[in-house]
């Protein structure tokens, strides 16, 4: 069982790209809409998808949690988005930033862009920028939509409107390609956000996942749950020889041995793959591995 678990962990990390592709496809299942320039508006749109996936993507099967949060907070009908907050807590406690690594379409997009060959730079010296995403979460997602309102209490979705590059990539660009009226309405804001998207793309070639590290408010929310989430990464001290390969392999600049449940860990499994002693693996529901292994051994013994 112990060995199986590690094999499962390694396999999961190995096929991560395919899982990301499948998740992206599932969250954007209405492909024909891309060519019609129409947004799917069925009842599934009342449910959020786990990753950052624009509601206005013609193919989107659900709503973006960040977009939905702002829409409700900024609405005159509600003061706070309890439903979306509950959704964040549920997903945060079960999976944490595993969502960033495996399920988020924009994370996958950055992963793919990063595969473009060229000089790659480390973000280890840019660690203070990580806190920017919490600032964006508090200011652009919560405070501004909540308090900058018109006379009847309606706010703008500030993050979606002024920052989110995923909105341009999935929403504005395909919609304007398929819909003449929308194309004619594109203005300065669209140009500005295109510039943000281009910046993110260029930075993604040079750095690994710059948007996730520095900007993404959804990643910021999930990161708060990394330490308590059911899904974790476990380093077995008995097997670890302290070679440091895991921290070397980590592209999110996490010291895996010291803090395997660091808020920045997106559970991508690079450390699991890199470990020469197979001492690192995923675990779910916080059961310490040695115990489970011994329990399993007991069961095996009784079976004999």
């Amino acid at each position, binding site marked *: 069982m112990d060995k199986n678990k590690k094999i499962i962990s390694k396999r999961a990390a190995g096929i991560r790209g395919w899982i990301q592709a499948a998740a992206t496809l599932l969250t954007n299942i209405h492909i024909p809409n891309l060519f019609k320039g129409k*947004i799917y508006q069925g009842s599934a749109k009342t449910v959020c998808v786990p990753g950052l996936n624009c509601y206005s993507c013609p193919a989107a099967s659900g709503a973006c949690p960040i977009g939905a949060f702002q829409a409700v907070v900024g609405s005159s009908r509600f003061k706070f988005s309890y439903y979306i907050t509950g959704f964040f807590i549920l997903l945060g406690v079960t999976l944490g930033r595993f969502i960033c690594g495996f399920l988020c379409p924009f994370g996958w997009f950055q992963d793919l862009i990063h595969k473009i060959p060229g000089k790659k730079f480390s973000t280890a010296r840019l660690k203070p920028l990580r806190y920017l995403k919490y600032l964006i979460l508090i200011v652009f997602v919560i405070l501004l939509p909540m308090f900058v309102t018109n006379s*009847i209490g309606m706010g703008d979705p500030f993050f979606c409107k002024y920052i989110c590059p995923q909105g341009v990539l999935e929403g504005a660009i395909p919609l304007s*390609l398929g819909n003449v009226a929308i194309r004619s*309405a594109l203005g300065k804001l669209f140009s500005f956000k295109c510039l943000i998207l281009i910046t993110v793309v260029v930075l993604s070639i040079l750095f690994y996942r710059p948007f996730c590290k520095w900007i993404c408010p959804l990643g910021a929310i999930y990161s708060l749950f990394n330490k308590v989430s059911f899904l974790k990464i476990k380093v077995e001290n008995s097997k670890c020889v302290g070679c440091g390969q895991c921290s070397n392999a980590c592209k999110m600049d996490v010291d895996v041995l010291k803090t395997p449940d660091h808020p920045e860990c997106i559970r991508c499994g690079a450390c699991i793959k890199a470990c020469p002693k197979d001492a690192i693996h995923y675990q779910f529901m916080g059961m310490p591995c040695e115990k489970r292994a011994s329990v399993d051994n007991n069961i095996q013994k009784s079976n004999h």
Partner: protein
Amino acid sequence: MKTKRTVISIFTLCTALLFTACSGKGTSNTEASRDTQTEAGTEVSGSSNTTLDDLYQQENQLFADHEDAWNKAFGMMNKSTADPSGNYADYLAATVESNKDSFTDDELKTLTDDIETIRKIEEQIAAIEKDNTASDNASQKDNSDDTSPFRNFSGQDYDGNSVDESLFSGNAVTVVNFWFTGCKPCVAELSKLNELNDTIKSMGGEVIGINTETFDGNEDAIKEAAAILESQGVAYRNLSIDSASDAGKYASDIMAFPTTILVDRNGNIVGDPMLGGIDNQDNYDTLMKQIQSVIDADGANK
């Protein structure tokens, strides 16, 4: 490892190219087709215009060739007897006939000869102009055959009064504004739309609001919408329509709000829908210009 990396990079590049290729093709296709459409249009009208120009040129040439005689004739013309819709050759002949005595025989002969030539040219001009107006009418007809969603219209205002397509026939232009309650930019332009309604009332226009949340007589949504309308001081009519109706389907296909369209007396949509609020001065000016042109066209058709 190295081969893997190359494979991956090639794959990524291919995917990227695939996407750009697809989207690029999409746009170029539509743009190309639009280009050819407009080009074809100008070509047709262009060719008839050049023949028209040619014919007018021939007439002018006649006047220039026998300048002395014609100048004399033009000097005798009386503005009040000029009839723009009448036959030009007849008119010229009448002028010459009534002033026969002032011309020499030679002059009279040139003038009558010229008038006969002009008569033939005028016939050609008339034929071409008839063709042009016919094709104009045909294209207008095509538009109206384009089953406008407002041809058979039915709805209710928020007080429960039923309205039908006579809503449109009573005005030269009806400005239909699509909005929904949670849409901040939509709400932001409501007071401006009310001003617009007051402005165009005397010109034969009316603003109508359609809130997409109030479909099928949804009472809660109507109450909410009415409260917002009141808070923004809106006095123009807002209607609840059936989501299964043509107008309802048209509204459900709108992907960006607010969207404002113009509907003429016959229930036809005129021009392209306008996206964005008219609290933006540029949008207001554009819309106002369109409204004016619809009203002008309506006056011309009468």
